[in-house]
């Protein structure tokens, strides 16, 4: 089962290294990891998606808590969080297929960032499920290149971690 762990860390050199090092050392498999600075420039937030059982996630949380640079760790409940991922996707597109691609983009709420005689570069920010759907719909047009950010997440409501 996929679980989302949100971690606040000190924003300084080596911290990301320490966290990813912890994952490899403890043989925890992570599905994605996204990191960025927060409103407080001394603090970064890391969002980690782990696809493992509850006991592994519990260990991940406890081990992260031990790191000096880690300020807070929280596993976010699936139903109580907003999780979003950004995808940039370049597909083959010519005058015959362009309209079909546009239709799918409209339905999915994706944006066209770039266009050339033979390709289109599309952007979509959505839940991981819908990103997967979008990707599947684009596959028949031949995907040339693709990049995903990994999920970032916040809990719903007024609370903070």
């Amino acid at each position, binding site marked *: 089962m996929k679980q989302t762990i949100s971690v606040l860390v000190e924003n300084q050199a*080596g911290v990301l*290294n*320490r966290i990813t090092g912890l994952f490899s050392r403890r043989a925890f498999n992570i599905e994605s990891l996204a990191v960025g600075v927060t409103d407080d420039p001394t603090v970064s937030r890391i969002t980690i998606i782990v696809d493992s059982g509850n006991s592994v996630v*519990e*260990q991940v949380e*406890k081990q992260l*808590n*031990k790191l*000096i640079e880690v300020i807070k760790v929280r596993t976010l409940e699936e139903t109580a969080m907003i999780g979003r991922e950004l995808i940039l996707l370049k597909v083959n597109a010519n005058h015959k297929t362009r309209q079909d691609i546009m239709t799918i983009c409209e339905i999915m709420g994706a944006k066209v960032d770039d266009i050339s005689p033979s390709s289109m570069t599309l952007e979509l920010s959505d839940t991981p499920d819908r990103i997967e759907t979008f990707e599947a719909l684009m596959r028949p047009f031949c995907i040339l290149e693709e990049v995903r950010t990994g999920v970032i997440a916040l809990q719903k409501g007024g609370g903070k971690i």
Partner: protein
Amino acid sequence: MKVRATQAILECLLEQDVDTVFGYPGGTILNLYDELYHYQDKIKHILTAHEQGASHAADGYARSTGKVGVCFATSGPGATNLTTGIATAYMDSSPVVFITCNVSEELLGRDSFQEVDITGIAMPITKATYLVRDPQTIPDVMRQAFAVAATGRPGPVLIDFLKNVTALNVMIDYEFIPWTENRNTDSIRELAVSHGLKAPEPDLNDIETLVDLIAQAEKPLLICGGGVVRGRAHEQFREFAEKMDAPVAITVMGGGGFPGAHPLTTGMIGMHGTQASNVACNTCDLLIAVGCRFSDRVALKPATFAQQAKIVHIDIDRSEIDKNVRTDHHIIGSAKRVLAELNQRLPQYHRTEWKGQILSLLEDQQIDEQDKLTPSQVLDAIEQAVPEGSIVATDVGQHQMWSIQHFHFQYPGQLLTSGGFGTMGFGLGAAIGAKVGNPDKVVIHTTGDGCFRMNCHELATVQYYNLPIITVVFNNGTLGMVRQWQHLIYQEHYSQTTLDRAPDFVKLAEAYGLKGRRVTNRQEMKEAMEEALTCGCGYVIDCMIDMDEMVRPMVPGGAHITDFLLK
């Protein structure tokens, strides 16, 4: 007040009551050693033969005194030579602050001479690492490093100063604040809040739950782990055990946490555990483990470990709970605090039947009466000769297990052994640290010929500082423990374990200006011990024992705890 940066580093050591440092100088750490020259009367520096020796010495000093050990080394190879020692301290939760210096800022990241990313290398084997690029942060970093090393579950910390940070013309603002007060400075207070630097206060509800569990139990077993030793909770543990009137099994790291000769002791548990400990573990209905992490040498097969029991885990480190073995109840807190609270709430129990059932499995220690020298004869001769409370530092392997099985350790810090990392070559360094920290105690270093060969150059340190350490080499001409596995599990394929080679350890001792003697029987061993205790210098006893001696009992790794391969 403005002081030199290097002066601030050493003053920060004085803040922590550090009066002894182990280390080895070199190019990038020259500035700090220059400052040390002015502090000779306040800080004693022990120069070892090799940085690894210094790292083990600082560790042995910490384990035996309960204080934080300090170790200096230079950049590059100096720093990497520390790594085995850092990992050893980490696995056994020993508080040591390692201080290295790196190349200057303008050379950093350019593959400069003797440059290595030691903070990167040490990351997975330390509680924290600090790379100091701004001299103004020195007092904060030093105070944090000591707080992190010493509090909660102790462990090693590494600080790497860039050489330019320690330049002798760098002046910083500094005010001497003793550690008892500097733990209240802002940066540490913040750290204490976010990371529980202070030992967590045990939850009283959790304690009440355990009191109830104990009331329902008929056949409880206690495990004394390394946390009892590190937390110096031996008095509380003893009171707990006596109130429980239950058998007590002791892990390798728990040696000294509970008196080895106490009538409730069942001895070691796990791979080389006694019949009594392992059977008790398999039949008890309540297992209370204090400061023990259920390593694969204790909980050999987690799925069937204490399968009839409710397992209760008391530990200071939350991440140990349910890591290796699924527990039914846990209490987070220092062994000392938890047991003190628990003791107040416990009635006096009497469990004559259960106790008798388990303790009757204990066999009296048999000393072989053979003509040729045996390990038990060697250990018996040591025990008979040394004063009570003598410190024992071991290396790793058969002699380590024999030593721990044989000696009855009475207090924390009396046994120094690399239990978690299993570092061959740990013993002599650790013995040096212990002797420096406990000059009034007799320090015995038990080792094998394989282990001793690894770091025997530290005899130079023994000689120079006139440390009368007694090294007892269990010389069987083989890597005994590995041979034992080859014998039992690998169809006697003695692949690369026979050590029929130089040096002559007696001549080696003499070459280092020490004394030594080779012994081949019980009488000679007795005489050698007498000589060793009175000669006033380091002494090496080369004990010739048979290469087919084995550590008994033995349960193979991964097997059920009572499936003894050897009885």
